[in-house]
């Protein structure tokens, strides 16, 4: 799960990290009054779950209250890479001498949290990483032993020469490492970490992604979820305990298991169709889940056919069949549906499905081909 910059900064502050003061606004009047209370020039920053906000015009310097009014007006409601800005952070503007990068990621290869620092921070860090990887210094930290002070100091010394700055940065790196663990993050970033003319090191931006699997024990962070920033169908799916990702095609897919769901989508594309979604109903086969899945998929106006592919292991085909019948009765779908059920309790499932009029197929390849054929027929007819 992603959280916004202002939320990540709250976590930074709790860990004692130096962050410029600021507050969140959802309308122009609030933005102005926050700026007035800060009483100095401010930054107006769009809060959306996407990188490159600055380049898209979502981050602006405001010298005075009038400028805050102008920029708040412009940025609120702005579209950044398909996301509408609904919140802006009004934060004290600081004079920047140098910009560095500090990040910690969950690294799959070393199976450790890896700390990355670079003296070449700022908005072009991705290009720095791609073109001059030697400018990024990495350290894999033993997850059992944790980060040692000398390690933090060594990393900080890659950023600054002045020992006073090194000490401040080392402390920030250690605190960031604590934030990583305390929030069960999979990624935390400060970009940029800046120095001011009076020799202070500050985190003026913050990014933090949390491991979804750990949200159950991070209630405060789980509550930070911004439903406005997500696709409504994906929200409904999550609440129904389904994995769902919206795509642009017209063939709806309902599958059990993530790998098989991906493979099914891939085959739709391979045989010349366009998948409308990724949807995994998961291992246990509650008929209610199938109903929710059908509701989500049928609510997409682009859908021309639906394919259901179930390989029963723990998932029982008869449960899925019951769910399909339930969905037929409740949702009265108008688009054609083709089903392939194989594995556990397949025979019972076939009996149940006789109650409704739908097409069935015997293999993975055939169910995909049939769904594509039906989608094309529907388009012509």
């Amino acid at each position, binding site marked *: 799960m992603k959280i916004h910059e202002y939320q990540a900064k709250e976590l930074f502050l709790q860990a004692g990290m130096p962050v410029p003061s600021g507050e969140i606004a959802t309308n122009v009047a609030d933005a102005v009054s926050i700026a007035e209370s800060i009483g100095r020039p401010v930054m107006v920053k769009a809060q959306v779950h996407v990188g490159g906000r600055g380049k898209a015009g979502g981050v602006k310097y405001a010298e005075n209250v009038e400028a805050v009014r102008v920029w708040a007006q412009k940025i609120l409601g702005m579209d950044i890479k398909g996301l509408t800005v609904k919140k802006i952070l009004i934060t004290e503007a600081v004079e920047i001498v140098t910009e560095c990068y500090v990040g910690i990621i969950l690294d799959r290869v070393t*199976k450790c*949290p890896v700390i990355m620092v670079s003296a070449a921070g700022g908005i072009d860090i991705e290009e720095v990483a791609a073109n001059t990887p030697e400018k990024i210094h990495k350290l894999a930290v033993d997850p059992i032993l944790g980060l040692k002070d000398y390690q933090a100091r060594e990393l900080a010394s890659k950023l600054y020469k002045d020992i006073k700055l090194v000490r401040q940065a080392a402390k920030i790196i250690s605190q960031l490492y604590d934030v990583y663990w305390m929030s069960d993050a999979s990624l935390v970033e400060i970009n940029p970490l800046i120095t001011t003319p009076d020799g202070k090191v500050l985190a003026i931006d913050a990014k933090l992604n949390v491991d979804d699997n750990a949200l159950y024990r991070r209630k405060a962070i789980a509550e930070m979820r911004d439903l406005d920033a997500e696709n409504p169908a994906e929200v409904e799916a999550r609440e129904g305990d389904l*994995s769902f990702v919206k*795509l642009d095609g017209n063939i709806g897919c309902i599958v059990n298991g993530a790998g098989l769901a991906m*493979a099914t*989508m*891939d085959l739709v*594309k391979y045989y010349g169709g366009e998948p409308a979604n990724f949807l995994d109903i998961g291992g246990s086969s509650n008929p209610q889940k199938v109903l929710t899945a059908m509701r989500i998929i049928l609510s997409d106006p682009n859908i021309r056919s639906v394919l259901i592919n179930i390989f029963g292991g723990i998932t029982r085909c008869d449960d899925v069949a019951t769910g399909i019948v339930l969905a037929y009765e409740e949702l009265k779908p108008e688009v054609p549906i083709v089903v392939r059920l194989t594995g556990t309790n397949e025979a019972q499932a076939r009996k149940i499905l006789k109650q409704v009029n739908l097409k069935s197929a015997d293999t*993975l390849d055939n169910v995909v081909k049939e769904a594509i054929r039906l989608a094309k027929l529907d388009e012509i007819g």
Partner: protein
Amino acid sequence: MSIFINKKTKVVVQGITGRDGSFHATQMKKYGTDVVAGVTPGKGGTKMSGIPVFESVAEAVKATKANTSVIYVPPPFAIDAIYEAADAGVSLIVCITEGVPANDMMKVYKYTKHRGIRLIGPNCPGLISTDQSKVGIMPGNICIKGSVGVVSRSGTLTYEAIWALTCAGMGQTTCIGIGGDQIIGTNFIDTLQAFENDKETKAVVMIGEIGGSDEEEAAKFIKKHMTKPVVGFIAGRTAPPGKRMGHAGAIISGGTGTAEEKVKALEAAGIPVAASPTQLPILLKEKMDELKKKAKTSKKMVMKKTSKPMKKVAAKKGVKKSAAKKKK
């Protein structure tokens, strides 16, 4: 022969009285697995379908000499269950549980590795050594005995691949799902190495998916160290970047971990990649026939004192063939 589990595997089921634990303990027993004990704190001294239940894994191991643990406990308790099994002295831990926090996994991974304990999973279907033992949740009825090893990051997609092999009459030695999370105990390379060392395994099917770089690393390993033919499948060619496709590990992030890169890496290592799981047996047969032919010709070549250049030619052929398939 087989890898990781066999007739000598004695299983203790952690979370045996839970919904999944009790069901699958029974299923494993039906398959022929030697399920010797179960563990649920508070229910020690009772029995579940004739299997004695203990208070702790240590007690169960002491009483039954269990050497393998399989974990069905809910996510908040799964990590603790792994530590408990490790401290109780089993040599193999299979964690089925999905939804384990990745940062906890990093710690327990180091812990088990340091003690020389094999950890499989989490978020995996477990494994089957055909006609010997099944540990986990795979449906046993789709497997038949034979000489193909199957390794996969997925669950149901693995069943699909096994089923395709079975329908084509290609039986299996061991089928293993290594799990769909970012941090897993046993990876492709560990498993491929075991298949390479296993006398009965003659060929391997490897099923990968988007996210991370394990498939790329495996491709390098296969090219360098494996003599047995390998064919592959990669799921997620149509997955958009930045979205978690169900499995925690199935995510394209920062432009890396795409299916395209993985397919390219495998094909470059001479591993044909199927467009559909149903094509796996066909590719496997082609690859095995090719190797047989190569073996025959290289025997002849040996008589003429040289066999090396032939190897290279054969490897290149493999690449071309699978590339042609893709275009189709």
